[in-house]
């Protein structure tokens, strides 16, 4: 009964962790996962993904899902 949570770039640095496993009890959606991991409300400017698809804060999360939080992407060419 667990959810894998991953953090990238400045979010990873700010929280001081790249990954953790949390108990899925009491977790309903993406915003709940962030609250459990970061102990704060989910900031508006963060992006999230569930099982590697972009997700909104109210997207449901289920046991066994992988949830990721990261800043806006800056890939591609300059």
């Amino acid at each position, binding site marked *: 009964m667990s959810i894998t949570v991953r953090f*990238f*770039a400045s979010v990873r640095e700010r929280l001081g962790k790249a990954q953790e496993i949390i108990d899925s009890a009491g977790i309903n959606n993406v915003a709940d996962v962030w609250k459990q991991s970061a102990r704060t409300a989910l900031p508006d400017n963060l992006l999230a993904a569930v099982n*590697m698809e972009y997700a909104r804060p109210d997207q449901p999360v289920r046991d066994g899902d992988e949830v990721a939080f990261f800043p806006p992407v800056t*890939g*591609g*060419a300059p």
Partner: protein
Amino acid sequence: MTVRLLAAAFDPWQEIVRYQSGQPDLTGKFGATTVFVGTLRDFNQGSAVQAMTLEHYAPMTEKHLERVAREASERWPIDDLLVIHRYGELRPNDPIVCVAVWAAHREAAFAACRHVIDELKTRAPFWKQELTGEGRRWVAPEPKTK
């Protein structure tokens, strides 16, 4: 259609030649090849850039790059498409990304190439961290421009 992520420096021109010669089905089919290569500059937002680290979320990156490439191949009549993207440590003048498209005609080749590079910038989970004289800094996304 091929998407590759590389940890080490690459020569896009050699990769394109090698890829094309490894696709015998392409021979005689294409009349147009378009190539976009993105290269690391030594300046950004007023500072000299000494190096850049490109972090990414594997395998979400591959998944979204493949989706963008597939979209392009469904939307335009193209014969083949190659996307190569770096991650890890880069130095100025290192190629970051290469998109090559083979098609019968140039219009589809240009449009598909442009679609892939424009879309991957906003959809593939990459984050740039620059090393400048003032230390390391995460690069903020640029406002949307065309």
